[in-house]
C-alpha cells in the first residue's frame, strides 16, 4: 500500500513538473494549427481529433479526459459541432478552469461569418441541422483569419505578458494567409486588410478594377476566379463556406438531408439535376464511402474528388493553410 501511495505521489509530481508552457487543448486539428501559429513556442498545443475522422461523432476516451484535466486553455469550434462529445470530456475531466463560460474556455466561432443560420424552428425531420448555423466555417480562409485573431485576443487577455508576441505571430500568420489567398503582388500593393474587407462586402472585383489590378490576382482567388458560377455536388453540407467564398454553387448534396444516408430515389433525381446544371465535380471527405459518388459520377461524367477538410486528414494537409491549398488545387484541377 505504501509503495502504491509513493508511486501515485511521484506521478503527481511528474505531471506538475511538465508545466513549462501553456497547455492548450483544442477540439480540432485546424484549431491546433492556427493556435500554434499564434502561440508559437509559448504553448504546448494538442488536438482531440486527428483530422481523419468525422468531427460530429467521437467516443470520449479516458485519454481525452486526462488531457482536458491538465489543460490551461480549451478551444473549440463551437456552433454545436462538438456537442456529441465535448460536454462529456469536460464534465469527466473536472477541470474548473476550462469549464464552458470561463475565460480559459475559448469558442473559436465568436467572430466568424456564419452561414445557414436557421430562421425558423429547427426540428429532427430536417436532418442534423445545427440551430446556430453551419459549423464547418473554417473552410473560408477569412474565417480562419478571424479565428486566429480571436485566439490571439483571448490568449492576450489571459497572458498579458505575452501579448506582444501573440500579436507579432498573428501578423505573420495573416500575411501568410493573405499571400496564399490573393497572391504576393496584390497583398503588397493593396494590403490584406483592404482586400479582405472588399471580399467580405462582395466588391473585390470592383476594387481590383478601380486599382487597375484585375490581371494581378494570384493565389487561391486567382486560381478559382475562372470557375465562378459553376455548380458542384458534395456528400455532406460541409463545403458551403468554401463555395460561398469562391463564388461556386454548392447546394447539391448526395445526402437527401444532413446526416441522412444517400437514397436511391434522391440520387436518381440528383443525377438529372446535376446534368442540367453541368456538374463536373463531386466532392467529399475521405471518411465517407464512395458508392453514392461513383453512382452519380458514372451517370453524369462528373469527376469524384476526395479531399480532406481538416488538417491532418491526409499527408498533403499538414497545416491549416496547406489543407486549404490542397482543397483549392484539387477542386480547381477538376472543374
Amino acid at each position, binding site marked *: 500500500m505504501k509503495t502504491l501511495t509513493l508511486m501515485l505521489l511521484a506521478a503527481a509530481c511528474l505531471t506538475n513538473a511538465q508545466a513549462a508552457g501553456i497547455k492548450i487543448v483544442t477540439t480540432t486539428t485546424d484549431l491546433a494549427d492556427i493556435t500554434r501559429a499564434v502561440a508559437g513556442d509559448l504553448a504546448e498545443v494538442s488536438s482531440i481529433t486527428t483530422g481523419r475522422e468525422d468531427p460530429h461523432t467521437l467516443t470520449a*476516451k479516458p485519454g481525452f479526459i486526462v488531457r482536458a484535466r491538465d489543460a490551461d486553455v480549451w478551444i473549440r469550434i463551437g456552433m454545436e459541432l462538438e*456537442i456529441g462529445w465535448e460536454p462529456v470530456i469536460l464534465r469527466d475531466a473536472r477541470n474548473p478552469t476550462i469549464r464552458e463560460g470561463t475565460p480559459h474556455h475559448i469558442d473559436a466561432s465568436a467572430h466568424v461569418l456564419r452561414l445557414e443560420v436557421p430562421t425558423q424552428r429547427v426540428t429532427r425531420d430536417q436532418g442534423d441541422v445545427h440551430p446556430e448555423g453551419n459549423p464547418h466555417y473554417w473552410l473560408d480562409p477569412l474565417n480562419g483569419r478571424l479565428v486566429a485573431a480571436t485566439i490571439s485576443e483571448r490568449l492576450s487577455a489571459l497572458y498579458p505578458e505575452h501579448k506582444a508576441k501573440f500579436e507579432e505571430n498573428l501578423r505573420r500568420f495573416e500575411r501568410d494567409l493573405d499571400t496564399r489567398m490573393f497572391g504576393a503582388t496584390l497583398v503588397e500593393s493593396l494590403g490584406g486588410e483592404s482586400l479582405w474587407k472588399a471580399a467580405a462586402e462582395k466588391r473585390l472585383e470592383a476594387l481590383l478594377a478601380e486599382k487597375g489590378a484585375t490581371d494581378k490576382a494570384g493565389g487561391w482567388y486567382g486560381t478559382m476566379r475562372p470557375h465562378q458560377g459553376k455548380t458542384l455536388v458534395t456528400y455532406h453540407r460541409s463545403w458551403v463556406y468554401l463555395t460561398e467564398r469562391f463564388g461556386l454553387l454548392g447546394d447539391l448534396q448526395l445526402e437527401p438531408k444532413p446526416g441522412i444516408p444517400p437514397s436511391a430515389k434522391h440520387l436518381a433525381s440528383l443525377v438529372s439535376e446535376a446534368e442540367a446544371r453541368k456538374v463536373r465535380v463531386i466532392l467529399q471527405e475521405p*471518411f465517407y464511402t464512395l458508392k453514392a459518388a461513383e453512382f452519380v459520377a458514372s451517370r453524369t461524367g462528373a469527376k469524384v474528388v476526395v479531399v480532406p477538410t481538416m488538417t491532418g486528414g491526409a499527408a498533403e494537409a499538414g497545416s491549416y493553410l496547406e489543407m486549404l491549398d490542397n482543397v483549392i488545387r484539387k477542386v480547381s484541377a477538376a472543374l
Partner: protein
Amino acid sequence: MNEEGAGFEEAVLQTTSLPYGLTFSGGKIKSGIGRLNRQHAHAWDFLDAPLVYRAMFGDEGLSGDGVQLTWLAPTPFYLLFGTEVFNGDNEQSFNVSDAAEMPQHDAPRLYTAFLKTGPDLGPNHALQFGLSALSGRHQVWDEDAEAGVSGESRIFGTDFVYKYDAKRAHGEGDWTVQGEYFYRDQNLGDTVGAWQDMPTWTAQQDGYYVQSLYGFLPRWRSGLRWDQVGLINDVRNPEEGSLSCGDSYRLTAVLEWKLSEFSLLRAQAGRGWYATDDGREDALECALQWEVTFGKHGAHDF
C-alpha cells in the same frame, strides 16, 4: 416506464467545481460499479441486460437513493476512484424485508467502492479496466415458512472494455469488446422465526458476460454476447441444506441499423440453456427494438 407505471430512472444533483478532481453526486443514482450498470438501457448494445446483472442486481441494475464521491487521480494515465453509500434496497443482493419479524436496520445499508483505469493507446484504440466491491445487508423472508435470515452480502467485480476506432463515417470498421465478472458471497447468520437456531444461510455465486460488436457497414453493427451464471453456485439454506446448483448460459446475436442520428432499429436472437429444478431447459429468445431519441443532441459516455 414499465408495467408499474412511469418513474424517474435517475434524479441526480452533481457538483461541478469541487477541487482536487473530486465530484460529488446525490439523489436517486445508478451505481458506478461495473460497466453496464451506469448506462441507461437505451445506451446498451443489446436489448436486455446480461444474466449476471439480472441475477445479482435485477433488471434495473443497482440504483437507489444514495451519494457518490469520485476522484480523478492526478496521474498521467486515467485513474478514477469512487465510493458510494446507498440506503440499500436491491431485491437480488441487498434486500430490505418489510416483514414485522425481521430485524430492522437503519439506512445506510450498502457501501460500494470502485476504480476505473485505462492507458492512452493513441487515436485508434481505447482500453479501460475496472474493479468493484460492494458490501451491504441482505435479508430473505420466506412467507410460507414464516422464517427469515439477515446478514452480509458482498460482491466483487471486474470489468474491461476495448474499442477500436477505424476513423470512417458512421461507425464502419469500428470494433468493441467488453466483459464483466461478478462474484457474490452471502453470509446470512441472523436467523428469525422457524429457522431460529438453524445454521447460517450462505451462498457463493458468480457470473460473467463477454460481448463484441463490429460495424460492418456505415450505420450497421452486428454483435455477439456470451452470458454465463453459476459456475460457482453453492447455496446452503435451512430449507434444503447444502446445494450445488448448475450453471446457466446463453448465446445472443444482435443486428443494429442506425436509421439516423436519432433513431435505430435492432433485432436480437438468443439461445439459452438454463439450469432449473427440473434439469436443464433451453429457450430461444427473440426481440425487436425501435429506439428514438427526443430532445437536445445527447452525448454518450465512454
